[in-house]
């Protein structure tokens, strides 16, 4: 028991040391922790209902409304707190969808090789060239802009990067001795793929998926700014768009909501980049 606990402790210290040695990771995780806490405790921290329309239109930031109110009298600070939930949720789910799709397609392609690989690779090549943002925009415009649609569409159109990474991983892992021995003792190919190749090659995809969260949040914000966000949600992109009309009299609406986007995207971006540095010790050691 004691040995186990010690090993756990050593692992935790080791992890902390790695995090501490990579500046991006450190800053990113701190930022993200703050954002997640704010989003989690939104109902307690928000002074007003984010949908409630007050009589104080365009009240500047002050003691009554921390970050002011918007053109319809909604409290900007409360909206921001709930907007964090929307952004993070959509970002994480969309990136997860693209992570799973990319891992499966890339894994199949790189592990099975042969004809399947040629077909899938060409498929990936073609998909890489499609103007993703416009495709998303078109689909959301046609099929409606519910949150589910937005997440699905972002996820289904952005998996290519993950597929390329996973394919390379699978191609290198399949040459390892232990994979060859598994094959020779008759373990099924699909089992090797799911039990050994994917778990051992997943790390770069995790790093990339973290970066994809950033991308998904930006895409969602862009859609919302174009009026294609879910109208039943508080969304930072919609707030920026709303604030655009009040830029002169209510600068705080767009400024704070946009700033929230920047900070959140930056947090995931830094973490993803930091994870990439963990991957390549060369980058880590020699500064």
């Amino acid at each position, binding site marked *: 028991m004691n040995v186990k606990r010690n090993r756990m402790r050593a692992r935790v210290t080791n992890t902390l040391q790695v995090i501490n*040695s990579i500046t991006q990771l450190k800053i990113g995780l701190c930022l993200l922790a703050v954002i997640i806490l704010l989003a989690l405790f939104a109902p307690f921290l928000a002074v007003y209902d984010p949908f409630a329309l007050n009589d104080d239109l365009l009240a500047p930031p002050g003691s009554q409304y921390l970050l002011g109110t918007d053109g319809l009298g909604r409290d900007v600070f409360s909206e921001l707190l709930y907007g964090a939930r929307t952004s993070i949720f959509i970002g994480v789910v969309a990136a997860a969808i693209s992570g799973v799709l990319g891992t499966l397609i890339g894994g199949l392609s790189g592990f099975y090789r042969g004809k399947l690989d040629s077909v899938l690779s060409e498929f990936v090549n073609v998909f890489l060239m499609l103007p993703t943002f416009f495709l998303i925009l078109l689909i959301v415009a046609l099929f409606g802009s519910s949150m589910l649609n937005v997440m699905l569409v972002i996820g289904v159109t952005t998996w290519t990067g993950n597929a390329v990474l996973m394919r390379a991983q699978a191609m290198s892992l399949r040459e390892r001795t232990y994979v060859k021995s598994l094959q020779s003792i008759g373990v099924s190919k699909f089992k090797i793929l799911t039990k050994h190749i994917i778990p051992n090659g997943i790390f770069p995809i995790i790093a990339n998926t973290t970066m994809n969260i950033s991308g998904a949040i930006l895409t969602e914000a862009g859609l919302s700014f174009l009026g294609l966000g879910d109208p039943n949600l508080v969304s930072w992109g919609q707030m920026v768009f709303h604030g655009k009309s009040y830029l002169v009299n209510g600068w705080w609406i767009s400024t704070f909501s946009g700033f929230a986007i920047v900070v959140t995207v930056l947090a995931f971006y830094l973490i993803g980049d930091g994870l990439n540095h963990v991957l390549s010790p060369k980058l*880590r*050691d*020699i*500064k």
Partner: protein
Amino acid sequence: MPLLSIQNLQVKYRVKNKEIHAVNNISFDVEQQDSVGIVGESGSGKSTLAMALLRLLPERIAEVSGEVLFAGENLLTLDDERLKARRWTEMAVVFQKSMSALSPVHKIGYQMADIYKVHAKTATKEQAKARILELLEMVNLPARVYTMYPHELSGGMMQRVSIALSLMHNPKLLILDEATTALDVVTQGQILKEIMQLEERLNIARIMITHDMSVVATTCKKVAVMYAGNLLEFGLVKDIIAAPEHPYTKGLLQSIPALKGERGELIGIAGSLPDLSKSPSGCIFADRCPSRKPTCETETPIRRTLADGRMVACHIAGS
């Protein structure tokens, strides 16, 4: 005066929070027209040693101390201008990965001519080209190589290009850093033979870095045995092959199969390289040494010169 005299050369790599002693207090001489083989397993610091001699280590992470006297001039303290003037005219180098020794997007002739003009500043285009064609012929390459790109040549051909490049300005010292390791045995033998003929004709001294004791045995006069950044034994090849003094050298020689004569048992050396970021309390080889004594683990052996002129750093050697 020796052509090259290395004195107490030390290289420390500073990486994040560690200091790695890659080369530790090494001294030896290279005479005119000498040929010295530096052998050791990978990670023994032999390549670092070569890069330090040439002052090619990145100053940000490598700290080099000691003296490298080339014709009496300390290369380590020479100013940049004069160092650049010595490079390639006095000493040239052939690296291990010859395939990547030249820029992939420039033609070989273009690069060689450009390098030629670094030191032959007044040479015309035609003169540069003539010299390069002459060099290519010298290493038995066809003239068409001049207009080819590096990736169009085989490993052996690129190795010859690298050798031709190194001989461009008739250097006095040639350093071959694992220059033939990546080649097949036949090509390797051929190229080594050619190099030895060329150096006799052109009066060149050679330092040959390799992990292959047999290459040293067939092509060098002297051998330096390195281990974990330390020079363990240095002397004439014929003396050391016949009677190795250091237990590590013995181990190295035992791990080579003999082609002729009795088939002796091949014996590897147990264990692996020590952590170079920690200074050992005694002999660096102590924990792998089959004939270790208690003093080996507490006292660092001092370099001694034996009767046949060889240097050895070991408590038990020569007894």
